[in-house]
């Protein structure tokens, strides 16, 4: 319902301010760094304030409010766009603006030495604007437009250091892989528009997420006995698969770590990859409707979502175990956690998935920023085997990183990850289609704890492996003796956001506990009560115990292998590598998915491109080529004609004239006797004629 509340009317300001900052930032010169940073941070702060106001409004009136306007007319139809404010959007906006603001502040310190500082903030603001626009979109078309801009900024930011070929290639890869997903999304959009005639989500009953449209789609069946709603839902899910790095379109995320660490934190951990999950949440009514809705079985679209999420979660967790780059571990971890979010939405509904999304955003951003701090402190070193013992040298970073790691692992009771992951596992346990996602999720939890412990041990514990600096030296002494080798703590602009995020990583868990499921209630627009008894029902205590045990097991295993006997030198093989080199290597290579794609799809694409090139050159160009050849032939013929017939004819004519002249000139050779002979001959002939004439 359209509202006269001014925050709803001016909701568009939230994305518009960062967009404006980006627009102005594009015009700034390289030297105007402080102005660029100030512009970006100011616009983000304002957006944060407005988002808080919107959140307050949503708190007071937990209902869906939207505002539609006609945008473009073609023929007799109008394409409408609009924005909306509902609890989901409000929560997401607050999260995006807050985390974004912290990362913006962090970037000031991190990118201080980079000469393209202004361009960085311009792109960051552009991203923020597009992401916020995506969140408030009431139309699938507007969402898609913002989705594409987000993809564009991801490309720009991954390839920020474009002189590095690896970065440029990674950006290209990200764009192309997400494009494949976006194709599915576009097809789904077109199909949806064709079936329902509207792309607005909510439009007083006429929107495509509303009852009439959904029932129309559910009853309309296409080939394979699949309902139109399932088909459209799966196609839209394709977009989410690409954007959120689900199997099989996950290959771009690890390579996307080529971008600067704030980019990885903001885009590839907290927000952009969450856009896929948000999309699924937005079109959840479509995904959940099914012809068999009356029996209570989930729709086939949601089944697919849950399965893919489960497979992704385990796959990525396995691969993360064998990685050496600090950011790549976190990238695979993100893929894995996104899989969890998909499981959550698939089995448990929007609230379950979004709870994990919000929690994950904070602690993953924290982990990435912490990793950035570590990299910054180690002068750009990213290989964990080269690090070690950094907790003495970078204490604040260590503390906050540890908090984030524990949250990610799901350490019981005090960390947000525990509550959010438990909600997912609880919903998976209660899924009546299959228990396999539950088991996969549990295995994934174990692996998560294991690889995070491995990473923390490698980076922060043990001895410093890079160079020959021995351990007992105190940090201050080392800094004095060899500043290049010494790792140092990062400046306050970088550590302050870390601390804030760590705080939230702990606190946020409490908004979604079963004792007080506030977030779930808020999202589903119902009241949630504070009730400790809910902790005891429904098999929850056993589940919480089981997951806690899994986490402890993972932590213990990790500590036992890596913490107690850390490797001494950077070149030493990993313990697991020594035990199972083949499996370790396969995991390290991401189970060869990239290589598989290179062999099949890339080759196919190359062949198709070659064929198209051949077609272009010889068939479509054939006519002009033939014409050109014809004209060339005509020209050659003309030339030959000219040369051999006309010219030669002319030459021969002249020659014959000259020849005859030469011949005739022999008559006048100066020999008078010849002249006389001629005269005599002529006389004879003349006389003959005269005589003959006379007689005749």
């Amino acid at each position, binding site marked *: 319902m359209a509202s006269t509340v001014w925050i709803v009317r001016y909701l568009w300001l939230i994305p518009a301010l960062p967009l404006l900052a980006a627009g102005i930032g594009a015009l700034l010169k390289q030297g105007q760094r402080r102005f660029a940073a100030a512009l970006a941070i100011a616009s983000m702060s304002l957006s944060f304030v407005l988002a808080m106001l919107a959140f307050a409004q949503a708190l007071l009136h937990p209902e869906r409010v939207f505002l539609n306007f006609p945008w473009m007319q073609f023929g007799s139809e109008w394409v409408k766009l609009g924005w909306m404010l509902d609890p989901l959007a409000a929560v997401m906006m607050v999260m995006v603006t807050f985390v974004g603001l912290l990362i913006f502040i962090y970037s000031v310190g991190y990118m201080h030495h980079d000469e393209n500082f202004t361009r960085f903030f311009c792109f960051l603001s552009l991203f923020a604007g597009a992401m916020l626009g995506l969140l408030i979109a009431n139309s699938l078309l507007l969402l898609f437009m913002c989705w594409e801009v987000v993809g564009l900024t991801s490309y720009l930011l991954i390839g920020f250091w474009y002189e590095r070929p690896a970065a440029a290639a990674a950006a290209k890869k990200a764009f192309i892989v997400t494009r494949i997903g976006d194709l599915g999304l576009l097809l789904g959009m077109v199909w949806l528009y064709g079936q329902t005639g509207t792309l607005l989500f909510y439009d007083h009953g006429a929107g495509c997420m509303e009852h009439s449209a959904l029932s129309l789609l559910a009853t309309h069946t296409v080939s394979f006995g699949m309902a139109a709603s399932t088909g459209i839902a799966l196609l839209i899910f394709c977009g989410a698969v690409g954007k959120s790095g689900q199997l099989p379109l996950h290959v771009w995320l690890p390579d996307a770590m080529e971008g600067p660490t704030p980019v990885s934190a903001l885009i590839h951990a907290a927000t952009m990859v969450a856009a896929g999950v948000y999309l699924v949440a937005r079109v959840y009514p479509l995904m959940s409707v099914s012809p068999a809705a009356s029996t209570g079985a989930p729709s086939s679209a949601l089944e697919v979502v849950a399965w893919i999420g489960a497979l992704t979660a385990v796959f990525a967790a396995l691969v993360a175990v064998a990685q050496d780059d600090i950011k790549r571990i976190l990238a695979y971890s993100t893929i894995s956690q996104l899989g969890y979010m998909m499981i959550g939405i698939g089995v448990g509904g929007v609230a379950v998935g979004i709870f994990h999304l919000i929690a994950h955003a904070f602690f993953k951003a924290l982990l990435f920023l912490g990793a950035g701090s570590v990299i910054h402190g180690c002068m750009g070193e990213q290989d964990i085997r080269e690090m070690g013992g950094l907790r003495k040298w970078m204490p604040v970073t260590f503390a906050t990183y540890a908090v984030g790691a524990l949250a990610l692992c799901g350490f019981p009771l005090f960390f947000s990850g525990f509550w959010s992951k438990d909600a997912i596992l609880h919903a998976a346990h209660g899924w009546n289609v299959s228990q396999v996602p539950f088991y996969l999720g549990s295995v994934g939890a174990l692996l998560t704890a294991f690889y995070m412990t491995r990473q923390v041990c490698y980076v922060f514990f043990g001895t410093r492996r890079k160079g020959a600096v021995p351990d007992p030296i105190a940090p201050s002494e080392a800094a004095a003796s060899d500043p290049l080798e010494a790792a140092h703590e990062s400046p306050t602009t970088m550590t302050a956001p870390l601390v804030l995020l760590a705080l939230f990583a702990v606190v946020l868990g409490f908004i979604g506990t079963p004792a007080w499921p506030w977030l779930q209630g808020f999202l589903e627009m119902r009241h949630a009560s504070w009730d400790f008894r809910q902790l005891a029902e429904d098999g929850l205590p056993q589940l919480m115990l089981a997951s806690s045990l899994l986490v402890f097991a993972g932590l213990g295993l990790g500590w036992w292998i890596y913490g107690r006997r850390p490797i001494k030198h950077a070149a030493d093989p990993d313990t697991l590598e020594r035990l199972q080199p083949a499996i370790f290597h396969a995991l390290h290579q991401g189970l060869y998915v990239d290589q598989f794609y290179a062999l099949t799809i890339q080759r196919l694409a190359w062949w198709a491109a070659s064929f198209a090139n051949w077609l272009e050159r010889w068939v479509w160009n054939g006519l002009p080529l033939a014409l050109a050849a014809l004209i060339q032939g005509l020209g050659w013929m003309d030339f030959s004609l000219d040369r051999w017939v006309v010219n030669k004819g002319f030459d021969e004519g002249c020659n014959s004239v000259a020849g005859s002249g030469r011949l005739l000139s022999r008559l006048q050779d100066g020999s008078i*006797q*010849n002249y006389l*002979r001629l005269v*005599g*001959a002529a*006389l*004879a002939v003349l*006389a*003959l004629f005269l*005589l003959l004439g006379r*007689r005749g």
Partner: protein
Amino acid sequence: MSVPFLILAAVTLVGACAAMLFRGLVHCALALAVAFAGFGALYLNLGAQFLGLAQLLVYVGAIAVLIVFVVLLTRGGDNDSPPLSPAPRQFTGILVATAIFAILAWAIFHSFAIRTPGIPAPQATIRQLGAALMESYALPLEVIGLMLTAALIGAIIVAMKEKLGPQ
């Protein structure tokens, strides 16, 4: 066709042929003189007395002698003028001459001359000739006098040894 005519014609012919055939120039010149004499005799035979004697005077007496003089003056080197050699060029000349002769003979034989009977000789005395020259042909006479003068002067100038400057 009387016998004297035939004999005289033969002599003239032989002289002419000899003049054209001999190798030595002097021999040619002398043969020419014989031919000229033959001509004069023929004129006398035909009744043109003054003409015959004039022929003998001018041609034999002056022109033939002149030719002999010039032959003698231009001796040295090319004394032997090769006779008719069977070169193609020579052949062409003889061919042309033969053709001319053939045509003329043919013309003669097909003309009225064959049919014309012989008539007695006309009377052409010196007196008549002189009268004609002085009356009817006075202008030609003067002109020819002028021409002879011009020729005389011309020949002298042309044949004069050139007195060139510093050479």
